[in-house]
């Protein structure tokens, strides 16, 4: 009788537990449907009513309720303090003025034009990038009958010569012939203010211009 009672009791207990669990499950479902949907199985937002039982969430019982989620404010503050780091990466739209150095010539050999300009009957204006107006031209010469290739002549062109171009050409030729040692050929384009020189390096003409102060 006792064993049967006990067995029945056990069965009844099991059934009761099951029903309890099912009831709690049902209760949970009903409560979750009545409330908002943001209820997770592991960590529940804490009201005392919704605290799960120990057997439903033993982790919570062991570790304690989870910490509340971090709340971030949606306000923001605009700051333009770091804009200068972006601005300095922009490309230039206009060629800037060259910086002032302590001594000239600079390591690359550049010198600014002398102020005031030299007292000469001509003036050679710098280009917009503050460099001297010296260019290289390669013109086709005669056909070399031995190699059957065209020979090319390299000329140095000096542009932007204002004033008396012929006086400039005379001074330039005298300087270069003394420096180089042999005679050189020049051509003057008066309308365009340009002088073409054959038989010199561009660096020699540059030295002449820097010495004159242009």
């Amino acid at each position: 009788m006792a064993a049967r009672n006990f067995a029945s009791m056990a069965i009844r207990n099991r059934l009761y537990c099951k029903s309890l669990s099912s009831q709690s499950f049902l209760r949970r479902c009903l409560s979750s449907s009545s409330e908002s949907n943001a209820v997770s199985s592991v960590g529940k937002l804490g009201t005392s009513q919704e605290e799960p039982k120990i057997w439903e969430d033993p982790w919570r019982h062991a570790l304690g309720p989870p910490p509340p989620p971090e709340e971030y404010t949606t306000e923001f503050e605009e700051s333009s303090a770091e804009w200068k780091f972006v601005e300095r990466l922009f490309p230039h739209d206009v060629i800037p003025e060259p910086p002032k150095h302590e001594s000239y010539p600079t390591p690359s050999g550049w010198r600014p034009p002398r102020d005031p300009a030299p007292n000469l009957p001509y003036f050679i204006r710098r280009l917009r990038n503050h460099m001297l107006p010296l260019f290289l031209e390669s013109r086709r010469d005669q056909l070399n009958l031995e190699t059957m290739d065209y020979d090319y002549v390299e000329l140095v062109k000096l542009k932007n010569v204002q004033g008396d171009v012929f006086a400039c050409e005379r001074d330039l030729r005298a300087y270069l012939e003394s420096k180089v040692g042999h005679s050189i050929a020049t051509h003057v384009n008066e309308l365009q203010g340009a002088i073409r020189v054959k038989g010199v390096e561009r660096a020699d003409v540059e030295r002449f211009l820097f010495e004159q102060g242009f």
Partner: protein
Amino acid sequence: MLSRQLLFAFRGVQRCCGRPISSPSSVATFRKCYVSSNAGADSPSSTTPEPVFAGRNLWRADTLTSFQEKPQAWLSTLEDKHDRKIGLLDLHPDVFRAPPRLDIVHRNIVWQQNYRNVQFTKTLTRAEMPGGGKKPWPGKRMGRSKAGSIRAPYFRGGGIAHGVRGPRTWFYMLPDALRLKGLCTSLTIKHNQDDLVIVDSFDRLPSPDAQFLHDLADHRNWGYSVLFIDVPDRACENLALACADIPSFNIMPTYGLNCYSMHKYQTLVMTHEALNYLEERILFHLHRADTLQNKFRYKDMKEKLLNEGEGEDDPVHAPFV
């Protein structure tokens, strides 16, 4: 010579305002005189700039060279047919005293005339003509000349041998450097030959009467054709109505300025605002960091060109081409 010109200007002002001016160097008294005498007559428009007598700020003008003249121009007004000078402006030497590169101006004008040409005609060759596949008669025994096809060029109604093979375009773009130099040289020529007139504003024109503008141009010896240049592409009402009746007087916005028009019209009349705008833009491009030798590829401009007339569709009227 310049001081004599100044003296003449002051004498003119003296006459109109009735107050004696002691010395030509008293700029402040000149200004006061002008402003107080014309206070009532001033039109209340915010865009009309103040008459200037002091120097303009010439950005990056080369001060070292003594071989480039510093050009100046009078600032006059259109209120009256008499040419009353209200200021003297310093012009930038890079724009108004550029080297006289006539070869570059020629290239610009030729480019303007040719780059828009499109040829739509096409002639058919003997291969494209209908028929002509069969040998019309045998080569021997006929006593006729040999013929391979009735559409050969020597046949009546045959194809054309070296004909026009359109459509074809003469489009090419001149590099920016050449176009800039052309503009600067043309402006230099216009200013140097006394064909450039700078005016304070076009809305000072008192009436829309074409006869008034005609008399004004005659009195000031402007010539047969005059081009008015202003910054916005909406012209002032009076000037637009007056120029509508005179076929040789035309108005153009600054973005339409070109070498061909500058040489076609005898006189160029510009507002002070237009002068500032032109100088600023030309100087920017003369000193810009980008290269002035551009390759104009069709594929870079294709989208822009094809979408050019997008906002111009009218639901009722057909487009005017």
